């Protein structure tokens, strides 16, 4: 019996840095509270996977600390409690779901074959079909089934839902929502496709060129920013400190603005997470 864990956060990343040739992760910090889903977003190559590998102790950081479930992923007990799904299916071609079941019961102490069978049925995954004949969606669903069949408390998914059709993504989101019905469980989900994340994520952490641009509650983020579409002339009347980023075209401007600083005189559209991401990366600052 393990000690009851009183730690409020399932992941704490504290100022981690790692340098590679041509890329560095600098002072990355964020916290994922228990019972929550965090969307970890950023362009390809922004540092999402590197950060996740450091969290999972697959890559060693040069400085900073990581705590996972109140401990460290070095610890085998902690690893038991983490379900991991990577972008590319990581199972060999000549293996089927039944083979996996028979192997994993020796790998994970808490492996539950009944739970695994239930997921296979639910996801309509055949037991005897070889992995090489699986579609991308099937591989992903199978990987998620494995991740959820050993009583994990933390799910870490790196680009797992990208490239899947809307029906499969929907099925997977359902499973996520079921998983966090237990308030001890949490999910870290990295993606560059943000639309489906918008729905269920509690927190958004946005990484760009190896640095965290923001990490906060999704609802606060959506309330904080809005889109203003107007002419260049009209933009001059907008309080400067309300304008976060601007994108100009020949016929007008679009600006990502802070709602609380702009006043009621302007019509502000909702900014989606994708808008915020695009503006933060591609938009210009007003000086």
């Amino acid at each position, binding site marked *: 019996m393990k000690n009851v864990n009183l730690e409020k956060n399932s992941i704490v990343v504290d100022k981690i840095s790692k340098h590679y040739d041509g890329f560095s992760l600098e002072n990355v910090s964020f916290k994922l509270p228990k*019972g929550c889903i965090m969307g970890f977003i950023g362009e390809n190559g922004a540092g999402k996977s590197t950060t996740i590998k450091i969290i999972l102790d697959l890559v060693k950081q040069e400085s900073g600390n990581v705590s996972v479930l109140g401990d460290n992923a070095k610890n085998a007990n902690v690893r038991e409690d983490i379900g991991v799904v990577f972008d590319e299916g990581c199972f060999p071609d000549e293996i089927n779901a039944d083979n996996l079941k028979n192997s994993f019961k020796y790998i994970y102490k808490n492996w539950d074959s009944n739970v695994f069978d239930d997921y296979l049925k639910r996801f309509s995954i055949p037991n005897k079909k070889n992995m090489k004949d699986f579609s991308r969606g099937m591989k992903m669903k199978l990987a998620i089934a494995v991740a959820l069949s050993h009583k994990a408390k933390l799910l870490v998914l790196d680009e797992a839902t990208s490239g899947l059709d809307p029906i499969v993504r929907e099925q997977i989101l359902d499973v996520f929502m*079921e998983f*966090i019905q237990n308030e001890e469980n949490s999910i870290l989900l990295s993606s560059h496709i943000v639309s489906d994340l918008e729905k*269920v994520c509690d927190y958004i952490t946005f990484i760009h060129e190896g640095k965290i641009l923001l990490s906060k509650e*999704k*609802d606060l983020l959506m*309330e904080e920013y809005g889109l203003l579409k107007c002419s260049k002339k009209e933009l001059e009347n907008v309080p400067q400190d309300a304008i976060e980023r601007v994108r100009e075209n020949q016929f007008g401007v679009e600006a990502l603005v802070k709602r609380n600083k702009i006043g009621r005189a302007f019509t502000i559209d909702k900014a989606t997470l994708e808008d915020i991401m695009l503006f933060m990366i591609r938009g210009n600052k007003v000086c």
Partner: protein
Amino acid sequence: MNIIISNSSNKPIYEQITNQIKNIIIAGEMTTGDVLPSMRLLAKELRISVITTKRAYEELEREGFIETVTGKGSFVADKNPELLREEHLKRIEEHLIHACDIAKVAKISEEELAVMLKLIYEE
């Protein structure tokens, strides 16, 4: 119990939830002591963030519509007639602010607006 979330609404999702639950309580569809769905269940069914449903429930609790008992769930609180009146007044105010904003933009005077209100009320 129906809760419908609209993505095209200008109101944040938590506010849409609080408003609809308030309406359900005000209309008497749920009465004192009735159990509300758990925050996590509501989030799951509506496919929204748990923090959003939590915030909605906290808001309802602060305004005295529901009570949350740790480990037991959330219940409809004792109805307070003052509170309901207050709630209605607040909503009317919201609509009137909106009407006044339009009037100001269109340069319609306070008097004209007052006459209009009187006519509509007496209809």
